[in-house]
C-alpha cells in the first residue's frame, strides 16, 4: 500500500504548488472543479476562462485549454467561445467583484439569454487581488480597505444575493446553486451538476461558492473557518436554488 498525490487528474502538476495564498479557498474550489472534470471525463472538451482577480492565478492551473481574460469579462469571452464552437464545455471562473460588480451586466444577460455555459463564482466577501476592498458581497459591519469602519448597510446596502438574482431571471433549463468550501463534497456535487447541465445542452449553469481569503480577512485558520461557516452563512444560504426541472415562477 502506498500513497499517491491526491490531486485531480486534470490539474497541471508542473504548475504546483499553485499561486494562491496559504489557506485560500480558490484552491479548494479548483480541486472540486478538477475532480468534477475528471469524473465527467471532459478534460479534452473543457475550455477554462479565468477572470482578473485572484482567479487569474489559475490561468495555467489545469491541463485544459485556458484563457485569462479581463476583470469581469470572463463571461463574454467564454460565451463567445461557446457560441463559435458549441462542442466545447465552457467554464467561466471569477470572483464576486468580477461577477457581481464590474461584470454583472454580463452575468445577468448571459443568464437571461440562457447561454449554455457554466459559471463558477467565488464569493470571498471582498476584492482579494487588489488587497481587500469592499465587494458587493461584503458583510454588514465587515471592515475592508474601503469600508474601514465597517460596511454600513444604510449607506451601501446589504450583500448581493447573486444566485437568487440569477434564479429570478433565468427560465427553465438553468441550474443555480450556492456551495461552500466548508463542504467540499456538496460543492463538487453542485459543480458537477452545473457542468452536466451544460453537457446536456439545457442552459445556463451558475454556482456561487462561499470561500476563504485569510490574507485579506487577516484571520488565522480558526477564524477563517469561523467567518466562513458562521458569519457568511447568515447572509448566504447554501443549497440548490434552481434545478433544471423546476420552472421559473416569478413574473409569469
Amino acid at each position, binding site marked *: 500500500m502506498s500513497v499517491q498525490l491526491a490531486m485531480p487528474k486534470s490539474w497541471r502538476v508542473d504548475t504546483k504548488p499553485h499561486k494562491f495564498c496559504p489557506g485560500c479557498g480558490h484552491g479548494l474550489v479548483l480541486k472540486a472543479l478538477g475532480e468534477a472534470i475528471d469524473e465527467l471525463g471532459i478534460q479534452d472538451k473543457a475550455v477554462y476562462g479565468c477572470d482578473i482577480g485572484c482567479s*487569474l492565478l489559475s490561468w495555467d492551473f489545469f491541463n485544459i*485549454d485556458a484563457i485569462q481574460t479581463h476583470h469581469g469579462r470572463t463571461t463574454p469571452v467564454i460565451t*463567445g467561445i461557446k457560441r463559435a464552437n458549441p462542442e466545447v464545455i465552457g467554464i467561466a471562473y471569477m470572483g464576486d467583484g468580477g461577477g457581481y460588480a464590474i461584470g454583472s451586466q454580463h452575468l445577468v444577460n448571459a443568464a437571461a439569454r440562457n447561454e449554455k455555459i457554466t459559471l463558477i463564482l467565488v464569493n470571498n466577501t471582498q476584492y482579494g487581488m487588489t488587497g481587500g476592498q469592499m465587494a458587493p458581497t461584503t458583510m454588514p459591519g465587515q471592515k475592508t480597505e474601503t469600508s474601514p469602519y465597517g460596511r454600513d448597510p444604510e449607506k451601501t446596502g446589504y450583500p448581493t444575493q447573486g444566485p437568487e438574482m440569477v434564479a429570478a431571471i433565468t427560465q427553465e433549463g438553468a441550474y443555480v446553486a450556492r456551495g461552500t468550501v466548508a463542504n467540499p463534497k456538496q460543492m463538487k456535487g453542485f459543480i458537477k451538476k452545473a457542468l452536466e447541465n451544460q453537457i446536456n445542452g439545457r442552459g445556463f449553469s451558475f454556482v456561487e461558492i462561499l470561500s476563504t481569503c485569510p490574507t485579506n480577512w487577516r484571520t488565522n485558520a480558526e477564524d477563517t473557518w469561523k467567518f466562513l461557516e458562521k458569519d457568511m452563512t447568515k447572509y448566504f444560504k447554501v443549497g440548490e436554488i434552481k434545478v433544471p426541472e423546476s420552472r421559473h415562477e416569478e413574473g409569469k
Partner: protein
Amino acid sequence: MPEKPIKGDKRYFMTGNEVVAYAAVMANADIMYGYPITPQNEIMHYWTRMAPKYGKEFLQTEDELSAGFTTVGGVLAGRKAFTATAGPGNTLMQEPISMAEAMRLPIVVAVQQRGGPSTATVIYSQQEVTLTTFGGNGEGFRIVYSTATHQELYDYTIKAFNTAWKYRFPTFILGDGYQAKMRESLTMYDPESRGIELVSPEAYVGMPGTPGIDRPPGQYRNTYNVEEELYEVLQQYQKEYDAIAPEVAEFESLGAEDSDLVVVSHGVVSRAAKEAVMELREAGVKVGYFRPITLRPMPEKQLREVANKAKTLLIAESAIGQLARLVKDSIYGCGAGIIPLFKPGAGITAEEISAKIKSVLG
C-alpha cells in the same frame, strides 16, 4: 457547404453597411457579435438576414464590452469573428481590443465613425482616428484601413480578415456615417475567383486531443508579474510590427511627386480632396493628392518622400488634427509646411478644399 451570395463579378447599388455585411460573408467570416449603434446598425441587420442562409452565426450582446470580448472568444475558438461599432461604442470597445492587442488576437472590427466627443451626433466624422489607431492603454499594435468608397469597403473588409489572421494584429475597417448610409455603385466578386486566397483561421482553444496527454494545453494570459517580462514582450511585438509595416502600409497618390502643394486626407474626405485636386490640375494648377489608406501603420516612406519634395501639405480632415498628428509623427524632419483644414464632425466638400488651396497658393 452553403452557397455564397456573390458568384461572378457584379455591379451593385447599395449602402455601405450592406456592403460590409456582404464582404464579411464573402471573406468566410463565421460569426458576428454586436451591439446596435448608429450608423453601423445595418451591418448587423444585413448579416442577420443572410446568416441562416449561409450558415453564419450572430449574437447580439448586452453592450460593446461584451461584443468585443465575445469576438475575442470567437477568435480564440478558431473562428473568423468580427464586430462593428461607432462613437461611444468604439470608446468602450477599446477594453476588449486592448486584450486582443496584448495577445495578438486577429479580431476584425468595422468602425463607422460618428460625431464626438460623447454621444454628439449619429451622423458622421473622422474623430475616431486616434481612438481606432491608438485607443486603450497600449501602443496601437493594430492595423487600420481607412476606406473612401463602397468598392473599398468591400475590398478592404475582405482584406481585413486576411490581414488579421496572417499577422495576428487586431484589424479595423474605418468607415464613417456617410459611407455607412449612402448608396453608390460597386462591383462585388468572389475573392477566390480573383485569386485572393482566404487565410484560414486556427483555434487557440478547443483543439482535438486531451491537453497534457496528447498535446500541451493552449493557455494564454495577458498579465505579467514584473516589468521586464512585459518590456520583452512589447519589444518583440514592436519588432514584428515594424517588420510587417512596409508590407501592410497602403496609400493612394496623385501628382504628389511634382507639386508644391499636396492635399493629405483620408477616408471619405479624400474623395473631395481628389475631386478638388483633379479639377485644379485640369485647370493647370500644380497640386497633388496623397492619401494614406492604412492609418496604422502609416505609409511612412511614401509620405516622407512627398513631404520632402512639397513645400506645403494641406491636411484636410473632419476632426481636429487627428490625421495631422499621425502625419507629423511620420514626417517629422521633412521640409513641408502644414496647413490645416479641420472640420470636426462635419463633412468637407471639394469646393471647400479647392477654395482653401487657392487661398494658400494666393
